[in-house]
């Protein structure tokens, strides 16, 4: 009986809680906020204690990334990019470099540009581009994310590129197991220089054009990722808890609003409907947001 009273005190407006569900009191809302921050701190610190629970499990095939990229190009009326194994090796090396040096950027902390990987593998380019993605669970979600970003889309749908190379690496980045997709675009310098009789040829030194930014990495060969281990995604656990809290608060707000309206209780409080609308927006945002970063 005592338990039922406690539940009613927490979720419904009554005399014991001054006609407002205890969960909706300012003290309770502040407590929930601090508990959520504490929970986030735990998620952030767990990997530092050597735990391998958190991470992003993925199953991404480079061939699928190429096929999806070419499908997008075809939709835009562009020619398909041909897969170049040298570019793929360079992309793979870039990914290994990011994992080895622990960075997530186009330019390495030591200043190495992405284009260094092109040339290190003997790919002399006229045009070069790089798209990066991490923490995506599938190739399609990564390609869609690139397509939603104007600058990445520009690379994907650029008529300047003729070839593509894909690297998919799996490893630990900032304490979290992750999968990184490296998409290299390029057009060989030789492909853009017209065949000119030697006698007429001039020594033209044209600067290579590179969009977006890529270091020679130690030979850590990482192949297509087929993750079998069960990992708890930090994003997914945050999302689940957020949805749970918002869902519960919405439920209590609706119950509270109905009972207060029915009983015609006059109280000093915010507008229940406004709170429902705001938390509804938070719920929608939590549902819209998906795991995965692109640069």
């Amino acid at each position, binding site marked *: 009986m005592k338990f039922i009273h406690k539940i009613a005190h927490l979720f419904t407006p009554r005399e014991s809680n001054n006609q407002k569900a205890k969960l909706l009191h300012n003290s309770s809302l502040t407590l929930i*906020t601090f508990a959520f921050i504490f929970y986030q701190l735990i998620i952030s610190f767990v990997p530092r204690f050597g735990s391998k629970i958190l991470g992003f499990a993925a199953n991404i095939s480079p061939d699928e990334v190429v096929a999806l990229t070419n499908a997008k190009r075809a939709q835009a009326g562009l020619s398909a990019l041909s897969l170049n194994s040298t570019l793929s090796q360079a992309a793979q090396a870039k990914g290994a470099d990011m994992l080895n040096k622990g960075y997530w950027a186009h330019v390495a902390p030591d200043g190495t540009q992405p284009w260094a990987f092109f040339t290190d593998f003997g790919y002399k380019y006229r045009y070069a581009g790089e798209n990066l993605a991490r923490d995506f669970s599938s190739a399609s979600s990564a390609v869609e994310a690139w397509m939603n970003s104007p600058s990445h889309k520009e690379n994907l749908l650029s008529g300047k590129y003729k070839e593509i190379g894909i690297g998919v690496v799996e490893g630990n980045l900032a304490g979290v197991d992750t999968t990184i997709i490296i998409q290299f675009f390029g057009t060989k310098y030789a492909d853009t220089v017209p065949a000119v009789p030697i006698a007429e040829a001039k020594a033209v030194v044209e600067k290579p054009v590179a969009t977006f930014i890529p270091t020679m990495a130690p030979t850590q060969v990482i192949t297509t990722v087929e993750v079998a281990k069960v990992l708890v995604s930090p994003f997914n656990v945050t*999302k689940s808890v*957020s949805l749970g809290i918002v869902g519960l608060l919405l439920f209590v707000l609706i119950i509270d609003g109905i009972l207060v309206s029915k009983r015609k209780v006059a109280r*000093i409080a915010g507008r229940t409907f406004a709170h429902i609308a705001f938390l509804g*927006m938070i719920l929608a*945002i939590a549902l819209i947001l998906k795991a995965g970063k692109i640069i």
Partner: protein
Amino acid sequence: MKSMAKHLPHYFVLFGLLLAGILAFVLFSYDQAFQMIVAIAVAISYVIWGLVHHSIHKDLYFSVVLEYLAIAALGLVMVFSLILRT
């Protein structure tokens, strides 16, 4: 409900703000910094909406201000956590 019908234009403004927030999250899914700015802007707008609405309604009290601040802070903490973990 009566209060809501009486101040319908107020609620239209609030819904407009919140819908604009959702739309910005969808359209700028690639720009995390912008999403964070949008989240802050919507949370501040929500609190201001509450202040103005209650002020007009002549029932603006300190505890009411704290209530809007507490809900806005909770929402903001959640959205920031999600954006930073994507």
